[in-house]
């Protein structure tokens, strides 16, 4: 069980003639085993935030601690799922899942075994021998999720993972993600710009502002019974949360004195 704490995280990029602030003083606390959704308009630094969490980039100021430890770079305590799958086209589904396991010292037999297990977990064990181009978008993203789970990270970081999928596939994968989250108890950080997705998946939804990205508010989503997707979507609380987050996203941008 691993918590994530962001403490005054700021990231600025040097542009051609001015500095661009992607994230500005972001304070955020994500509890162990929580499914935290971060939602924001484009330009809110969502992807920058994910890069920082992944250790692919470092804050200009402020600190991020995962399980109490500051981040020094990428590591196998975090698994990243990208929107565009990022599968190696010359490797089969099985071999793609094994990729993450090649970084630690698992033996070949162990790797094969664990990859099988996780392809099974995401429900595509029958396609283990297929290459990415032979799989649909939904299946590719399942392979990518299996790859990120196979090395058993404490935290799963997901950057708009279902954004490129058609509506039906997206819904099925959302349900599957909830199921996997409940079964594995991992801390999940899920980035999206889709409000329905945010409310359906998130136990907390953090709304970011755009340019620069700041935390506007973190909403605790408390929908009593989430028996089935249909029930959840029809509950009056769902509509209320949906509306609240919509309002937060569409509120007039703060005046920040930039001409």
């Amino acid at each position: 069980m691993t918590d994530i704490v962001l403490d005054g995280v700021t990231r600025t990029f040097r542009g051609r003639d001015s500095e661009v602030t992607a994230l500005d003083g972001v304070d955020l606390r994500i509890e162990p085993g929580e499914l935290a959704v971060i939602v924001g308009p484009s330009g809110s630094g969502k992807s920058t935030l994910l890069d920082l969490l992944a250790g692919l980039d470092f804050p200009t100021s402020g600190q991020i601690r995962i399980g109490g430890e500051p981040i020094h770079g990428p590591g196998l305590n975090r698994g990243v799922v990208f929107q565009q799958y990022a599968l190696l086209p010359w490797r089969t589904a099985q071999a793609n899942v094994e990729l993450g396991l090649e970084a630690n010292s698992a033996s070949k037999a162990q790797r094969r075994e664990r990859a099988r297990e996780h392809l099974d977990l995401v429900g595509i064990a029958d396609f283990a021998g297929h290459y990415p181009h032979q799989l649909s978008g939904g299946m590719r993203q399942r392979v990518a999720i299996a790859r990120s789970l196979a090395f058993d990270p404490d935290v799963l970081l997901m950057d708009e993972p279902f954004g490129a999928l058609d509506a039906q596939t997206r819904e099925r994968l959302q349900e599957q993600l909830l199921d996997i989250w409940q079964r594995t108890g991992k801390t999940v950080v899920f980035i999206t710009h889709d409000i329905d997705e945010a409310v359906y998946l998130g136990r907390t939804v953090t709304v970011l502002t755009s340019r620069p990205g700041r935390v506007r508010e973190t909403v605790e989503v408390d929908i009593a019974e989430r028996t089935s997707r249909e029930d959840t979507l029809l509950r009056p609380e769902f509509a209320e949360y949906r509306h609240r987050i919509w309002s937060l996203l569409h509120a007039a941008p703060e005046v920040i004195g930039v001409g």
Partner: protein
Amino acid sequence: MADTLTPPRPAASYAAVRAGRAARSSVAILVFLAVWELVPRIGLVDSIFLPPASRVAATWFELAADGQLWENLAASLARALTGFTIALLIAVPLGLVIGWYRTADELLTPLLEVFRNTAALALLPVFVLLLGLGETSKISLIVFACVWPILLNTISAVRTVDPLLIKSARSLGFGSAAVFGKVVLPASVPAVFTGIRLAAAASILVLVAAEMVGAKAGLGYLINAAQYNFEVPQMYAGIVTISLLGIAFNHALTAVERRLSRWRS
């Protein structure tokens, strides 16, 4: 309307389709050979300067039978393969390194473009002056001609690897060497092969020209000698052999490339 559905195609008709495709792809060649045969026969061109295809074919078989053809082919092949292999061993590793380090790429690519655009044949006299008329100058020239297409394509192959794949591998905690071996190298294979195929074509082109200057064996020598001795059909037989050699080289490389990128089919 179920009765209007087309029945599954029987196996025999697949064979027919394949035969049809083979016929289509060879029709232009057959027409070319027919024109070559007829033009000298009906007197449009003097058959002393352009013997009909059948005479050239007969001469080709004679040269093959008495061993002359194989002797010259072997000499050419040895030069082409030696030069090509040396170029491969230099250009692929060098290209990988230059492509991987941005500064090296920015510093060297302009110079490499200058060399690439310098026709290798224009440098033939330079090579002869510096290295003499022997094998060294011939093979060096082939190496020179082959290095640039392989080098430049390898550099651009490494530079254009999908950055997301690299990012994803880095997120798994792989260091530079592992990212290079697991992602960059395999991702570069198709573009590197484009360069290798261009180099193969260049090697044959330069080979023939090099062999026309001071060689004692080789297809270029055969063509040149046949022309001096007015053995016109032999000259054409040599030219045909070079075409066949070029095609064979390209086919062999395509086969290797297909083996290395089976995942794409």
